[in-house]
């Protein structure tokens, strides 16, 4: 059994989670301070990828970063590489699809954050940057961690948008989810089962860790 799809999936999910981690926290931080109207609008736009079918996300992506798209054609002519049909194309797709998960979970944590801690810190002369890194983030740790784990899990399982921008090239762009589909189409059920089990195992680990994070939170408040 060629393990490339596992390695590729983990690599794509890892990198996109890394990007989503910072982008999601930043977006959540700024949106939680925004005026109400701005907040509503930002919320809509930033959550959209979660409710849109991944194929629609993939369609928009192809239209933008495809070789004929406004971004894709420029990158191709200036830097000389294609943004689609490569292993890293999947990163664009999974980042966009997983972003709302991170953003919403972290925003929830930020909104539950006791503002008196922020106020108290400010009156004590501590800078807003210090308070962000040393007070707000540590006290929202649980939310941030579960957002990260969820985003990673979603990235591993992403199929629709990924398959549209990467296609399926064995040994180059294949991920676990695209491999399962391909194997089923070819009728190699036994191999497909193996990948299904790999997928199940990963999902279990993820769900158990999210669960542990949540029970950890409960025991702290008791």
């Amino acid at each position, binding site marked *: 059994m060629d393990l490339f799809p596992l390695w590729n999936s983990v690599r794509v999910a890892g990198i996109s989670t890394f990007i989503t981690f910072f982008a999601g926290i930043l977006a959540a931080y700024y949106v939680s301070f925004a005026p109400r109207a701005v907040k509503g609008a930002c919320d809509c736009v930033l959550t959209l990828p979660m409710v849109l079918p991944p194929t629609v996300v993939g369609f928009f992506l192809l239209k933008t970063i495809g070789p004929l798209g406004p971004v894709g054609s420029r990158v191709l002519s200036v830097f000389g590489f294609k943004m689609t049909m490569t292993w890293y194309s999947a990163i664009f797709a999974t980042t966009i699809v997983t972003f709302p998960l991170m953003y919403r979970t972290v925003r929830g944590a930020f909104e539950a954050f006791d503002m008196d801690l922020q106020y108290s810190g400010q*009156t004590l002369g501590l800078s807003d940057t210090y308070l962000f890194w040393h007070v707000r983030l540590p006290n929202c740790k649980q939310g941030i961690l579960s957002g990260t784990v969820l985003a990673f899990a979603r990235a591993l399982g992403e199929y629709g948008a990924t398959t549209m921008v990467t296609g399926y090239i064995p040994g180059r762009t294949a991920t676990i989810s695209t491999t399962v589909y391909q194997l089923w189409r070819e009728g190699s059920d036994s191999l497909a089962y193996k990948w299904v089990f790999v997928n199940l195992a990963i999902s279990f680990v993820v769900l158990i860790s999210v669960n542990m994070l949540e029970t950890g939170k409960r025991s702290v408040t008791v």
Partner: protein
Amino acid sequence: MSLYVDIRYRAGKFRLDAEFEAAPGVMGLLGASGCGKSMTLKCIAGVVRPDEGIISYGGRVFFDSRRKIDLPPQVRGVGLLFQNCALFPNMTLARNITAVLKARKDRDDAPSAASLVKKFHLEGLENHYPENMSGGQRQRAALACIMARGPSVLMLDEPLSALDSYLRWQLEGELSRVASEFGGVTLYVSHNRDEVYRMCSHVCVMNAGRTEPVRSIDDLFESPDTLASCLLSGCKNYSRAGISPRGIRALDWGAELECALRFGPETEYIGVRSHYVRKSDAKTGTNVFACRIERVTRDVFGTIVNVIPLGAPSDGDFSRIRMEMPREEAADLRAGDEIYVRIKPEDVMPLKS
């Protein structure tokens, strides 16, 4: 160096309109819950921006909407003790204090963490997280953090309301000591008149977002002049007032009362403290009227007798009068009995609305 505040702030239906000047010493900000006391403190601290107005301390302008001055809370040097203490839960006591010390620019003048721990009797708790400290310890820890900052104005927001009564008494002494050692302007926010009476020299009453003029504490308790301040001073008996040739007619009690204090057309209510409504053996005389006893309640150190004046209109909200007396005096009083009560003219307080 005094603190001058004149601000307006609006949030939904709530309107804050606060104006007062606080000199060094402890000034109370007394008002019912939700009247805007905490909001006023947050505006002074700089964590909430008022819509308009001026806040200054000594010659230093913290906030001036016309001149577009709005100093960030970090440089105002206003220490605010939050009701829930607001210690950082992810840091030990020692780290809470050192974080504040490290942020100071004048680190040479700053007290050491160890001296603060000692001063606030927190020895042995340095490595404890706030969740593992008692309510009183948390409060002292929060004070230690504020003193680590070296504030020029100290503000205490309902510091005792979350504690049980024994601890409250102990901490009150502690706060009193901290405030007098501090020596600068201290604002003490509370809805408890007893605390304010013991802690403060002056008091500013807040009612529904508006401040009344600052007065001395004795002045407030001896001669409150508005219904709101009288309520806060702990007085329990009120009646709507009508001006009559003899004095004041207590409309809710159906009684003509002589009043030794100054009153006029602006007088809308009268107030009489429970201790000053006395049982009368004579059936006639100045400010004597008949009542029926509604209820006799034994209290911790005396007896509370609720009476309803016979002349009271049936629709009066204020018709019930509360009397407090020593137990032996109330021994032969029963619900349903008729008695005569007497109020001295100097104990009738005329009140504006």
